[in-house]
């Protein structure tokens, strides 16, 4: 029930943003040297001259059939643009999340177990700076050093100019190339996705290490850990099973939140690395004041975020049996 309300809220807010904010999207979109007629024509196209309620109804009707308007800049339907560009963003964010989780959780555990050791201090530096580093600047620095100076990684894009992408099954290059056994393309896609993923995952990695470490420390102090030790259960099992499963419960929420930030971060990272996804699409639309695509992108990203939070809620049930009966 709550989901439906939030969904409706998302749709409504996205709708209202353009129409209620000060300023006139049509005028802004038309540009500084547009004539009055051009602005009027745009207002007509955006439907801004109709009463708000009618606009809302039209908007909802449009959503149902998948009509999100048209981009002035690309001259395509927004929905088509989004469908074309979404897989790239999906691949980047999922891969980044994967990196953040796969590195972050073990590091958090190790920091908790070897508290105040050298690893812990190093990780603390990483997590404090991770949240302060501007992602776009980190991206530029990595490009500067690793790509431009040392030529270890490419500067941008999803694949080299001369390479052909793998057959479009999922449209996620890494997976498609694996499925079709095309190792060369797989390796190359990995090289291209690596830097942007590292940058995008960095703040999330910092957060996850920090939160997981704190949660593990708290759980390791709990009574049932003493009990398990009293029964002779090995330290390894205690840390990796008994403690970790309990610590993951609060960590999971943090991961969900961080994913949301990551989705937002794509607008920066995709710009720096010329990654052809919906983040870059939104940025270019914003610069052109092309307001329909921005709304469409906002809606899509909001939906993704909702979905991820839903998955995490379900995951809670798997992690914590006490929740299942509510």
């Amino acid at each position, binding site marked *: 029930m709550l989901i439906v309300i939030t969904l409706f809220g998302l749709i409504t807010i996205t709708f209202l943003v353009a129409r209620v904010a000060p300023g006139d999207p049509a005028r802004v979109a038309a540009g500084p040297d547009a004539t009055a007629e051009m602005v009027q024509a745009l207002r007509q196209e955006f439907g801004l001259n109709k009463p708000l309620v009618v606009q809302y109804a039209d908007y909802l009707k449009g959503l149902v059939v998948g009509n999100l308007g048209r981009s002035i800049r690309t001259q395509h339907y927004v929905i088509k643009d989004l469908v074309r560009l979404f897989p790239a963003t999906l691949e980047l964010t999922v891969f980044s999340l994967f990196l953040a989780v796969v590195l972050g959780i073990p590091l958090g555990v190790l920091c908790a177990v070897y508290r105040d050791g050298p690893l812990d201090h190093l990780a603390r530096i990483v997590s404090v700076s991770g949240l302060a580093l501007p992602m776009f600047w980190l991206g530029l620095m990595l490009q500067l050093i690793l790509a431009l100076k040392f030529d270890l990684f490419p500067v941008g894009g999803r694949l080299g100019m001369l390479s052909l992408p793998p057959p479009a099954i999922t449209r996620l290059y890494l997976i498609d190339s694996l499925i079709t056994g095309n190792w060369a393309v797989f390796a190359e896609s990995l090289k291209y996705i690596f830097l942007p993923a590292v940058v995008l995952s960095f703040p999330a990695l910092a957060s996850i290490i920090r939160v997981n470490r704190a949660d593990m420390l708290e759980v390791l102090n709990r009574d049932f850990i003493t009990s398990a030790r009293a029964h002779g259960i090995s330290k390894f099992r205690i840390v990796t099973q008994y403690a970790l499963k309990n610590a993951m419960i609060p960590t999971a929420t943090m991961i969900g939140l961080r994913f949301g930030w990551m989705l937002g971060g794509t607008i920066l990272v995709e710009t720096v690395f010329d990654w052809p996804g919906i983040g870059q699409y939104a*940025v270019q639309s914003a610069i052109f004041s092309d307001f329909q695509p921005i709304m469409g992108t906002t809606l899509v990203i909001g939906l993704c975020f909702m979905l991820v939070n839903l998955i995490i809620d379900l995951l809670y049930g798997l992690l914590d049996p006490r929740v299942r009966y509510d």
Partner: protein
Amino acid sequence: MIDRPKGPRPQPTGLWIRWKEEHESTLRNLRLSIYLFGKSPLSILGLVIVAVFFIVALIGPLIVPFPQDATGTVHLSQKLMGPDSTFWFGTDDLGRDIFTRVILGTWISLKIGLIIILIAMGIGVPLGITAGYVGGWPGEVIMRVTDMFLSIPGRIFALAIIGAMGPGMTNSMIALSIVWWPGYVRLVQGRTLSVKEESFVEAARSVGARRARIIFHHILPNCTSVIIVKASMDMGMAILAAAGLGFIGVGAQPPTPEWGAMISEGRNFLPNWWWYATFPGLAIFTTVLGFNLLGDGLRDILDPQSRS
């Protein structure tokens, strides 16, 4: 002569003394907090960075070596020179001293950060207290709306708002304020709920204290510590977000020396003229780091239960 014994010495009734007595426990707590804060080197570092930031922002325009390079001037003869003794951070493609512009950018960032946080608090705190204290139907509505706002990742939401309003520094501040206020509602509502349950509030209610008095005298002071902690962390995050928008090109516009916008311009000159993009970024990093460390330190002394 009989020496009459003097009576007990009259107590000094100076206002200062009386104030000190009344607030004795607060002063004691303050001293303890300062002592604890001083024990953490990272927190001190944060405080120092933030202090430097404020000082540079305020007196910056008075001390920069090339004040005319703030906007507008062009010295093509000295364009794109590397860092040396005259131009500590080098010059940009219009021959302007980057060090000067970074310093001047400090004031801009301060302005942006403060305005965003103040507006966000101004909207969020009253709504949060209302939702928490009054509760019921209006409280539910406020919280649901807050949830809806929070369901859209902040950066995209800000971008969408700017997309509708058009680029510019003012618009980006408005957009970010709209993105930020829901966080305060949640924080303050939660805190209000727990303070409401405390016995001293019940006691106040039972002697018939008016709602407004309870809110201002009991609830608000108990919320200030968490608000301060959040505000100091948010200051850094807001500056970061604004710089991000500047980088994309929808925030402050050139020739304003905003750090994000400078990095965006400098991007075109990598790798050979690397200083252009590097130094403004370092400025952002240092500033945000300072606020984060300060916020962490404040949280440790003001709100120990949420210590990480």
